[in-house]
């Protein structure tokens, strides 16, 4: 009887120490689910989901505070990917958050109108606008995510969202016309 209690106590002590050590040594920093959700989100940082950026939205989804259908730039494909990851049913985009753009866009500043007020620079979530007070501003095309956030603050309305044009660099082969179905 006494031996059994002793043996179990010793075992409990040893495993307790092991587990305690493991908890400290192999601690997972941050929430891996948030990272995986964040990896699916398009990183437009547009705030259409009513959160101040993609990562805050990812945190809200992980915490169960937001739905998966609030990201228009991610589109239906993004909702599907989130549904697959989280094991929930996909649902159509919430129209309250806006609609998916037909074509990706980038911001363009009409430099002859720009007064150099820096308001758009402050609004840009990815620092894709270059300029200084009283100096002309310009958009770094390759860094712009097309989030539209710079358009509204501009006091002289000189920022336009232009569609990204297809050239021979980003052209994609079309899906073969479905001649099988056409034949029926």
């Amino acid at each position, binding site marked *: 009887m006494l031996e059994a209690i002793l043996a179990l106590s010793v075992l409990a002590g040893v495993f307790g120490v092991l587990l305690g050590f493991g908890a400290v040594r192999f601690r997972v920093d941050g929430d891996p689910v948030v990272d995986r959700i964040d990896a699916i989100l398009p990183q437009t940082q547009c705030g259409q989901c009513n959160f101040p950026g993609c990562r805050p939205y990812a945190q809200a989804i992980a915490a169960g505070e937001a739905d998966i259908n609030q990201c228009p730039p991610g589109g239906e494909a993004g909702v599907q990917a989130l549904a697959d990851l989280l094991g929930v049913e996909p649902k159509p985009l919430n129209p309250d958050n806006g609609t998916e753009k037909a074509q990706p866009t980038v911001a363009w500043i009409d430099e002859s109108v720009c007064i150099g007020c820096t308001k758009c620079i402050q609004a840009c979530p990815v620092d894709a606008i270059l300029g200084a007070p009283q100096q002309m501003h310009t958009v770094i095309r390759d860094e712009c995510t097309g989030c539209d956030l710079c358009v509204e603050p501009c006091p002289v309305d000189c920022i336009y969202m232009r569609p990204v044009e*297809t050239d021979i660099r980003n052209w994609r082969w079309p899906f073969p016309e479905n001649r*099988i179905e056409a*034949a029926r």
Partner: protein
Amino acid sequence: MTRALRDFPGGIQLAGNKGESTSRPSMTAPLPRRVVIPLDQHIGEPARPVVKPGQRVRTGELIGSPEGYLSAGVHASITGEVEAVEERPVPHPSGLPALCVVIAGDGTDEWIPAAAQQTDAMSRGALRRRLREAGIVGLGGAAFPTAVKVNTGPESAVEQLILNGAECEPYISCDEMLMRERAGAVVDGALLLMRALDTRQCLIGVEDNKPEAIETLSAAISTIAAEGVEVVPVPTRYPGGGEKQLIYTLTGKEVPSHGLPADVGVVCQNVGTAAAVHDALRHGRPLVERYVTITGPGVAGPGNVRARIGTPMHELIALCGGYTGDPDRLIMGGPMMGFGLSDDDLPVVKGTNCLLVTTETRFPRPDQAMPCIRCGACTEVCPAGLLPQQLYWHARAKDLDRVRDYDLFDCIECGACAYVCPSHIPLVQYYRFAKSEVRAQEEERHRADIARQRYELRQARLEREQREREEKRQRKKAALREKEKSTEDRKAAVQAALQRKRGEAGTSSQDTSASQDDDG
């Protein structure tokens, strides 16, 4: 000497149809009056234009400077005046325009002075730099910058250079004519490439349906006494001229999936590229001309033409007797891997190996595609050992993860599967579609990663600025308090002194002086 050859999997026997264009020697096309030279003729970054409209350029002058590592120079192919630097239609499956330099020729063909070429004293790096400046790219069709291809890095030792003269696709004969007419240049180019790669062996693989080419090359090797260079006839079977297929046939080495030939100690170059290397390094002539096969049932007098880059295609077709019969489509490349062009006014580019004019009777439009019956014929002929059926199903379902699982990117788009398909399914079109979707998805993901990084850095910066402002405010506040405190202290001391003075008026002056000291 016979060499033990391997048999690559799959492949099909096709009628060569090369005799029509090889029956007479190649012609040199007359100088075009106007050339349109695209700045994006190679894989990688397009060249940056370095000429302005109105500027006079001589043949061989640099008009596009290579941008970034994976790029190549672009040169004026005739002498004349730059008319425009603008977007023009270019030969590309999309039919979209791209930036081009338009030169109006003055008919003189004045070359840039050839700098003295001390190639024997050049280091490997200097040879590569020269190839890059001379705009040498792979002339087999893919137009991969040669300078990048021969830069295998200090670690990987190259055992063999393989020159690809197999030319397995029907109708195309530009490499064959080049080997027959410029064998010396090909062999000397091989020697130069061996120097650039620091290797001692070169195998020239030529399909055994080109006996004249094999003969002239062998003769050239013995004339030059090119040590280590050997011509190896390979069996004629499509697509035996595919890079990986030819390497396997000649050496038995398999290029790993997602790998490069350099990973197995081999570098493969087209024979035309070797001749261009010879021209660039021995004569200081950049790549401004190439052999183009003009052939097909829709051309009156098929043949091979040495054409300047940028020449309008219709001029070459006119040189070969013009159209005949009932021309249907104009294809750049061969019947298996080429793509249709919308116009015969497009310029010849570095990757233009063949212009094929089809007729409805000899090249009937593909039949109605029928459902896949899972016969497996495509799997038997796939030279890459893939499962074309599975790729087809998943590409059709747009399941991009699954097509990658089935090694879509090992597909060389040879078209053998679609050729044997009894249901006439345009399989390669599905693979091309899936490949470009996967690439676009990866590009998007890459952009998202950059955006995430920039967003996080911005957040960190805003927080830091906020913190710094807060700290500054605190410091200012503390300084103010300090100041207030010291004024109050002084006031209190004055008060105390006054009180003392009033309280003990008339007594000894010691205390007064002491309190005065304290004040000070």
